[in-house]
């Protein structure tokens, strides 16, 4: 990242705008975002599966 880019970033930060990214930085951020989404999705599945496993046969026990 050049000095000019850094100056631009600081100015954007002062203005409240998003930082300027190089294509490589944008690609890495996209990769991180996708990984976080996948991990969150897997955590939802994991907690659901753990809950069902913990409840066992009681999952069907719902007296009216």
């Amino acid at each position: 990242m050049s000095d000019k880019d850094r100056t631009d970033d600081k100015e954007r930060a002062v203005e409240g705008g998003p930082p300027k990214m190089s294509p490589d930085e944008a690609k890495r951020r996209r990769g991180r975002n996708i990984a976080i989404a996948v991990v969150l999705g897997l955590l939802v599945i994991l907690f659901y599966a753990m809950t069902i496993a913990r409840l066992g046969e009681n999952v069907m026990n719902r007296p009216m």
Partner: protein
Amino acid sequence: MAMISDRLAETGRREAAGAAQASVSGGSVGDYIALLKPRVMSLVVFTALVGMVIAPGHVNPVLGFASLLAIAIGAGASGCLNMWWDADIDAVMTRTAKRPIPAGRIAPGEALAFGITLSVGSVLVLGLASNWFAAAFLAFTIFFYAVVYTMWLKRATPQNIVIGGAAGAFPPMIGEAAVTGHVSLDGLVLFAIIFLWTPPHFWALALVKAGDYARAGVPMMPNVAGPDATRRQIMLYTLLLAPAGLAPVALGFGGAVYATVAGVTGLGMVALAWRVLRRREGEAAVKAAQQLFAFSILYLFLLFATLLAEQSLGFGSLFAGWGR
């Protein structure tokens, strides 16, 4: 405590400086995975699985998988905290200079936050998936590795990896605790095997990489007590390790195949440690240490893989009088 607050202040200063330069995190997904020390994680998963398999009792496969995942992530989290603390010495060692923090791809503060988040998350998941004794054990292990070993012992004493090795030896006990809610002599024996294996394994590497550790100021045994004293201690620990490797047979959870594997590979370890002790000069000394280091990995893998195979496939019990 002063040391920790100093390091946190330094991390804060670097974060502030980093924020002034660029407000975008530069690390890729691969860098974050590297922070978890995947190779150490795989060993932890493997040994914890053996701890779970030898434990008496049944565990629901889903809960067993979740427990194993939590133990693995806990190990990764402690590795991440280790890399955050050791970034300064990692930068001057050839073996570790390309790690994400010294290479500048991940900021120290990001690594610290990542490590703490995963530590808390893994302990909570293990508590929910198995029991809170196992979760507390995992929390203690993370604390032991990140604080007792990394922050305190590693730079203070040549016995660093002896005591710190306990952190790497706890996973089979955590695995057993996840199934049974307590720890038995069986788990303790698996702990002892890894605990006694750690010094010959790491000191064989330290004999070869003594210059690296000296540059980083880490008081490894060869730099403090000298290579010859290190060789004697390697021999001593290996002589304790070889019979300890046979203890599962005496306790009944290792069968005839395990007895053979542990006996033969134990003798192999002793022979290689003897070679390290005798060959003290030049290329032959380096080669002997490298061979012991490489074989020690195979030794531990074979011992645990055989236990896993015997317990999973049930062929350990084919030999009456050996198995339980």
